[in-house]
């Protein structure tokens, strides 16, 4: 068996053998789907009370994925635990003694974790969509409508990218505590605040989550961005790559 295949298998064993890590994925799915369903049910019942403007820019797909704002935090937790957990437990020394080719180590870990997150992310996105649309009733859209499939697939990709971004940053920070302390408030509060405040809005829309969100929308006016869904996705991919490359450089340079 080629070396890389063996490292991939080893990384898969690592991920599946730590219960707490797997729980974060289950949480990401449950929270996103559950909260989205709640918001959809609420929106459907209150739709007539929305303003004209809000009704016009209503995005059924985004609404059925609105729980992801909270659910993504569990995805971030997953990314942090998979990477920074190696450092906090000291496992990194066993890992790098076993696989001293650090680039292979990083790529294998990112690939295995990324694949798992992609599967869970897609399941989350599709479940949230179908349950949400059922609850939205007459306000719902069909998966066959224009842009809808792209937006739902985009939801799964968004979840994957946010976890990979967290992984990259965790390779830089190496401490779960530090990574949580930076990533959680940032994606839960700061990014949203910056995106709402008039003065910072035009910069905040280029933040990874704000940009990535566009790919999950089918009514562009609901977000009001100067770029389209694919450009938004590209911006988020760029952030993720930057985080992973920074993580790779730190891993290559620093002592374990």
């Amino acid at each position, binding site marked *: *068996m080629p070396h890389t295949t063996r490292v991939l298998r080893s990384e898969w064993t*690592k991920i599946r053998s730590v219960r707490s890590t797997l729980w974060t994925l289950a949480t990401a799915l449950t929270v996103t789907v559950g909260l989205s369903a709640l918001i959809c049910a609420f929106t459907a019942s209150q739709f007539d009370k929305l303003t004209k403007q809000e009704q016009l820019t209503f995005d059924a797909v985004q609404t059925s994925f609105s729980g992801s704002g909270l659910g993504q935090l569990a995805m971030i937790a997953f990314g942090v635990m998979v990477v920074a957990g190696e450092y906090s437990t000291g*496992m990194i020394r*066993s890992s790098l*003694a*076993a696989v*001293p080719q650090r680039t292979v180590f990083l790529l294998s870990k990112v690939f295995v974790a990324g694949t798992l997150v992609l599967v869970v992310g897609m399941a989350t996105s599709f479940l949230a969509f179908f349950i949400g649309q059922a609850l939205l009733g007459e306000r719902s859209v069909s998966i066959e409508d224009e842009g809808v499939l792209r937006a739902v697939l985009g939801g799964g990709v968004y979840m994957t990218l946010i976890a990979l971004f967290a992984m990259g940053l965790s390779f830089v920070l190496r401490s779960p505590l530090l990574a949580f302390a930076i990533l959680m408030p940032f994606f839960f509060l700061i990014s949203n605040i910056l995106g709402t405040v008039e003065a910072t809005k035009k910069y905040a829309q280029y933040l990874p989550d704000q940009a990535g969100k566009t790919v999950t929308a089918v009514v562009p006016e609901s977000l009001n961005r100067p770029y389209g869904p694919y450009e938004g996705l590209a911006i988020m991919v760029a952030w993720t790559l930057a985080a992973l490359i920074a993580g790779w450089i730190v891993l290559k340079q620093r002592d374990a």
Partner: protein
Amino acid sequence: MIELRELTKRYGDKTAVDRLTFSVRPGIVTGFLGPNGAGKSTTMRMMLGLDKPTSGDVRINGKRYDQLRDPLQYIGALLEAKAVHGGRTAYNHLLCMAQSNNVPKKRIDAVLDLVGLKEVAKKRPKGFSLGMGQRLGIAAALLGDPKILMFDEPVNGLDPEGIHWIRNLMKHLASEGRTVFVSSHLMSEMSLTAEHLVVIGRGKLLADTSMADFIAENSRTFVRVRTPEPERMRDVLASVGIRPVFEQDGAMQVEGMAPAQIGEMAAWYRVVLHELSPQKASLEEAFMQLTAGSVEYHAHEQGPTPDGRNGQAGRRRR
């Protein structure tokens, strides 16, 4: 065979390992000694490619660590710090290491059995005692059936039975023709297992010698003489060409004369003696003497020193 050449590691302006050059030969246990902070663990981490040397290098069978394919089949190591995820069972911990290094699965059960952790194979190390954690680390080191083994203070946290077990294990591994490199700060511990010694202090090589030579050179015998008239006694001894060494509390150490001769001389010159006792310096003392100038962290002696001032002097031996 492990070869270190001019191996150096600096942390900021602190030199933890200072141009170390030595080799670890196969088929024997080599003890790696040094006081706290001497740089043993840092050296071992550099051997495994975990820490990057500031300069110099380490070769394992002629190769850099990261050039080894399936390194765990060449060299197994127990590190000083814990290197296990507390939430992953002992079995799975070994499994992920075995998978990346092409080690057959049956080795996992074999090493768990060998270190006595078979019963807790499916348990998470979070709940392990210090000794059990140490045993899991040793199991991981032995996993790939490597020709070279490296242990950083393996007796840490082990009970007397465990210490006995690890001593025999190391001897056994060496008798199978393996290279065993083991660190310690206890000379007495090493004298029981190691055939060769590498001693470092403040990152510098202090000795690279066989255990037998070290013992022959360092098991110094002397006579401790205590007298209320040390100046006179010194002159008496000087008349036969002997220069005693004074201890901190005023007693003197005399080498090269039997107690009987010293006693007779003292009687002849009418010097009062309070003590006349043959002494044998332990290996531990020899080791402390060797590293005295390079002890990183001196314990401050309690209480006043003989000259009445409060002791700021370290536990340095003369």
